């Protein structure tokens, strides 16, 4: 993910994205998906640019986006943790795994750690039910999770973050 923190940069990216889609209402959700993919979340600035370029009002677009669980409206953490809450994961202790992650990170579902390292989501089903309970970090799926395995998984990413931070410095 590039850093497009300035509003100007974001507007440029949104402009670029919209240019690649056919005009028409059917492109709204794919455009929002691409904005989130590139910028990490749907910001008020992005919606304003979208309004200017497509004529779909920001409130209308926001109304559509908030209907779907995929969209987020705050800046996400560097690593996205998705805890599966599917039926198979539920009956095999997924809730305990989630609690342990919340406890270790000190955040609840939907939040981001203060250092911007992790954001935590609960998803309906990752489709790996036979290996339940599962957790995905940045799309990598961890099978047969237990509360005991949580620290090890988190460490993989925390270390990575610290390393790249050192490299940047």
């Amino acid at each position: 993910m590039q850093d497009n923190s300035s509003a100007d940069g974001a507007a440029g990216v949104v402009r670029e994205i919209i240019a690649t889609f056919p005009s028409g209402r059917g492109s709204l959700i794919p455009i929002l998906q691409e904005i989130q993919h590139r910028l990490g979340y749907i910001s008020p600035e992005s919606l304003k640019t979208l309004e200017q370029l497509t004529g779909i009002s920001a409130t209308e677009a926001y109304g559509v986006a908030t209907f779907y669980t995929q969209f987020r409206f705050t800046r996400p953490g560097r690593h996205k943790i998705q805890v599966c809450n599917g039926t198979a994961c539920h009956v095999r202790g997924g809730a305990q795994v989630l609690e342990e992650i919340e406890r270790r990170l000190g955040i609840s579902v939907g939040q981001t750690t203060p250092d911007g390292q992790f954001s935590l989501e609960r998803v309906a089903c990752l489709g790996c039910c036979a290996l339940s309970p599962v957790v995905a970090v940045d799309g990598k799926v961890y099978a047969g999770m237990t509360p005991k395995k949580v620290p090890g998984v988190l460490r993989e990413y925390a270390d990575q973050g610290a390393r790249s931070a050192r490299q940047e410095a």
Partner: protein
Amino acid sequence: MERLRERRRQAEARWQALMSGPESVFFVGAATCGLAAGAEAVINRLQRDIERYGLKARVVRAGCLGPCCFEPIMIVRHRGLPECCYGPVDADAAGKILERHVMGGELCGEWALGVMTAESYGRVPSFWDHPMMKGQVRRVLINCGVIDPEDPDHYLARGGYQGLERALSMSPEAVIEEVLASGLRGRGGAGFPTGKKWQFARAAAGSPKYLICNADEGDPGAFMNRSLLEGDPHAVLEGMLIAGYAIGASEGYIYCRAEYPLAIRRLETAITQMREMGLLGKRILGTDFSFDLHIKQGAGAFVCGEETALIASIEGMRGMPRPKPPFPAQRGLWGQPTVIQNVETLGNLPHILRNGAAWFAEVGTPQSRGTKTFALAGKVARTGLIEVPLGTPLRQIVMEIGGGMASGKAPKAVQTGGPSGGCIPAEKFDLPVDYESLGAAGSIMGSGGMIVLDEDSCMVDIARYFLTFTQQESCGKCVPCRVGTRAMLQLLENITKGLGRPEDLQQLEEIAETVKAGSLCGLGQTAPNPVLTTLRYFRREYEEHIEKGQCTAFACRKLVWYRIDPERCKGCGVCMRVCPAEAIDGEKGEPHRISEEKCIHCGSCLTACPPSSAAIYRESGDLKRIEARRQLAATTS
């Protein structure tokens, strides 16, 4: 047409060379499930060793073969030996198998699930005789796990696009007749006859017409569509071409959930390959049939599995359903006639067109023909993706294919159909799995999620779990669903906390019937099923929760108390360290105590307590404490 046939001849030659040539081949199951189990490490190790030893061998990233519980799985093909399936294998096992099977020329019995031939080989039995495979009939899944889903030649060599060829040589009406005669019913759950739906759409006035593949597999606990899309994407796409031709559609959409990135990638690859082969675009294979395909990513809304909500979502709106009629076959996407089919329905079509309606109807029951895939998961010993003839008894699926309970405990129920389905109790396991029998038992076939529950699963908790889901996913458009699911959930939450009242059960039933009768779409109409079936078959458990404050499965946390036996506690302090609520204290070497005020009933201490002490135990049904809680709730409300 001739171009495709020429391509198939080349593909067959390539496949032949792969299957009997001098090169050894490792087919590694690399679907999402296989990767989660560690397939990447296996592939890396194989590639490293192939290079290190200078072997003439290659690794193929295949889809999911089905028995996910044995993943990572690989099939090894080496000249002079029968193909052999191994699992579970980690990187080290893969390295050893490479040395012994490929370099040493012997099968490795300790990792072998079976040889892929019908007969056993020496002491290694046939894979198809494995208890998990024996009752299965693989039709839709025939290619999953045994081909490279990103190589169209593999699909072509195994009869791919022959169904399309035959369809294009027939009139669209004749294709519809063939599908009608096969008895194929929608595999998304409701079981509407596919051919009939096509007749409506074909007869409907309006052009263009659209075909939509519903790959928004939103049921928690279901992964049949994901496996098929990842393992054999061309089969689904060929099905779309056949359906598109039959109804007279010129454009198709695949609505696939964003949680399935690998499936989306495989579809994109396959669509590009189809264009290269002249299977998409204008005048396909030189006929008058023109058709094109688009992928739309779902954005995470369960209700978009409902046809009219899905259409609204593709149109860029909030995914809210609308009243029917008009049905989508008359007025669907952009107001045009539209047919929506489930992934598995489409996956059946190439086989029906290639082999004929009579072949399809050979298995199954008179009302429910063909096979059905199921995602078998939960407390069962062997989990994975299976395919069985419709009408197979539930008992055979759970006890033979699934191998009974992993815990060795007694099975309690099977949940079918996800949030729209219900729980079938163990005493009804002789039930044949078909649309009508499951419906009569209060559940539904659904898309194929099958979650097995044992004694440790609480049925009230399961009902609460599903209601939490449907309540969150209710779009809010109609009152019965929006308010009714919330009211039911509130009652269920109270019961699981010990705050239930005897009259709650009747009220639950009344609300459930109202929601069922009055909701606008399938989500609301079926949302009460988990509650109604558990009330019907497991009422005693509800009563225990209400009358005794007891959860015998120890699943309803608020009804479970953890205690330390001072006689057994050695004061090691392990429980104190894991307790997230700091509810345990005690001096080192002295028996510890749990503070009831602070305890959050999470059970971490019970899991952590060393087996040598086994000092922590749990109890449920403490009426005195439940009474106090009820009084507190009464005064604060």
